[in-house]
């Protein structure tokens, strides 16, 4: 079951590789120390871009396995960070097992089950499994934190993968991988743009108690970069009208910002700086997918409601 890559996807992917090569040159010039954080970050970007390109180009199954793996790593990092009870070991095991099941619903294109499996069935079942262990101390916290993790790292992120199986053929030039690429590219570039504008012009802290590095200037700069970029890319990868393209650009920029902020609040609550060290220069995988946990479901439902 291979997916046909329309040539626009290849062109844009080529553009991403070119952009990254350019960014690498700039960073080499800006940060001469071989192990500076900026250089590490670029090296990790190469890995991310290479893996995403492979996953999107190979086959639908490969892409589903890849995004399932991202969910697994994100959930594992989350469960490593938060306090868990030893009595819940079996329950956490079931929570991990829900990942292949959730991506299986996507593989067989069962939308109804995909959309309720975690918010309804796991929401009801996992606390039951916790209750059966007989431990009531910390029950609400354990059930609540586990469900939050599953909703963010599995349910929300899996919306990215459901874009792959939206019905094809209605719009001749639009493919699942194209929509995924559009969402991934804008979400990540928005992160980068916010960072760069914040570094260049940042004066006014937007949320000093949650994330002191976020500024009004960075946020506005991010929106002002992502919105025109969305309009530029939309005709290649999406069925959107110009107005809708601008709207999704704004949606991604704002949602991505709050996804980022939401993870910052979590890290602050736990008293840590980075969520892990899987991606040198970025921190952990949560530091990279935080914006996506907000942009993926919102973009998906916008697209599905208005176009599919």
């Amino acid at each position, binding site marked *: 079951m291979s997916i046909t890559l329309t040539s626009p996807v290849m062109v844009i992917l080529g553009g991403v590789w070119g952009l990254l090569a350019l960014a690498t040159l700039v960073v080499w010039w800006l940060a001469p120390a071989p192990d500076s954080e900026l250089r590490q970050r670029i090296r990790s970007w190469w890995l991310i871009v290479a893996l995403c390109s492979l996953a999107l180009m190979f086959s639908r199954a490969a892409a589903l396995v890849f995004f399932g793996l991202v969910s*697994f*790593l994100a959930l594992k990092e989350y469960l*490593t960070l938060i306090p868990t009870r030893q009595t819940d070991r079996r329950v956490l095991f079931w929570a991990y097992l829900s990942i292949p099941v959730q991506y299986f619903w996507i593989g067989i294109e069962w939308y109804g089950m995909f959309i309720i499996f975690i918010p309804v069935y796991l929401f009801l079942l996992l606390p039951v499994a916790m209750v059966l262990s007989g431990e009531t101390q910390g029950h609400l916290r354990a059930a609540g934190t586990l469900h939050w993790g599953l909703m963010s790292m599995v349910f929300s992120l899996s919306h990215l993968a459901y874009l792959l199986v939206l019905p094809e053929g209605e719009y001749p030039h639009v493919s699942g991988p194209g929509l995924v690429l559009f969402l991934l590219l804008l979400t990540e570039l928005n992160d980068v743009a916010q960072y760069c504008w914040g570094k260049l012009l940042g004066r006014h802290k937007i949320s000093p108690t949650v994330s002191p590095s976020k500024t009004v200037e960075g946020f506005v700069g991010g929106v002002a970069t992502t919105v025109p970029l969305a309009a530029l890319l939309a005709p290649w990868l999406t069925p959107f009208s110009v107005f809708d393209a601008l709207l999704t650009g704004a949606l991604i920029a704002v949602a991505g910002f709050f996804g980022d902020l939401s993870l910052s609040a979590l890290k602050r609550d736990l008293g840590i700086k980075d969520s892990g060290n899987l991606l040198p220069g970025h921190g952990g995988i949560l530091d990279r997918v935080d914006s996506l946990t907000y942009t993926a479901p919102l973009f998906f439902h916008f697209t599905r409601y208005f176009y599919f």
Partner: protein
Amino acid sequence: MGYIVLRLAFFLLIVKPFLLLAVGINVRGRNRLPVAGPALIVANHNSHLDALVLMALLPLRLLPRARPAASAEYFLGNRWRAWFATRVIGIIPVAASGGRSRAEALGPVRDALTAGDIVIFFPEGTRGEPERLGQLKTGIVWLVQQAPNLPVCPIRLHGLGKVLPKGDWLPVPFFCDAWVGEPLRWEGDPSRFMAALATSLGG
């Protein structure tokens, strides 16, 4: 020799993929790991996975030389476990001292070091509570006195007691850490050595 092939296959096909995917070990100070035998690796102990993780940290070429010291009572307890532990993993069975002399209890460990092996040794003697360093036994002092110039490499493990704690058989994925510390040297003072050891193992 045949068992070495089995051990390599076990680590390459089962242990390493499992540690990479289900666990994910973040190693710091990898350059301080021993590069040849004989050497003594000491670590805190919370899980059956500890010895496998420490062996997997070593380059493959050293795997035939790596030997965890482990409880004879438990690992030689039944025939299959004994076969797997002594042949595939290559443990050095250590009997509880129970009133016998140090030389009798830890003699096989000293012999392995003399033969040039990389011995993995858990000074707590048994698996304790996750992330709480138990009382260190002083057998380690006797051991380093037998070979005072031997490099002792302390490795502090974190998280494996959550992945597979004592008394459970089902591993649950969590990220784990391994900090390889500065090598410890025997300078003739047992209490200072034990204090340095406890510090480097997170006590």
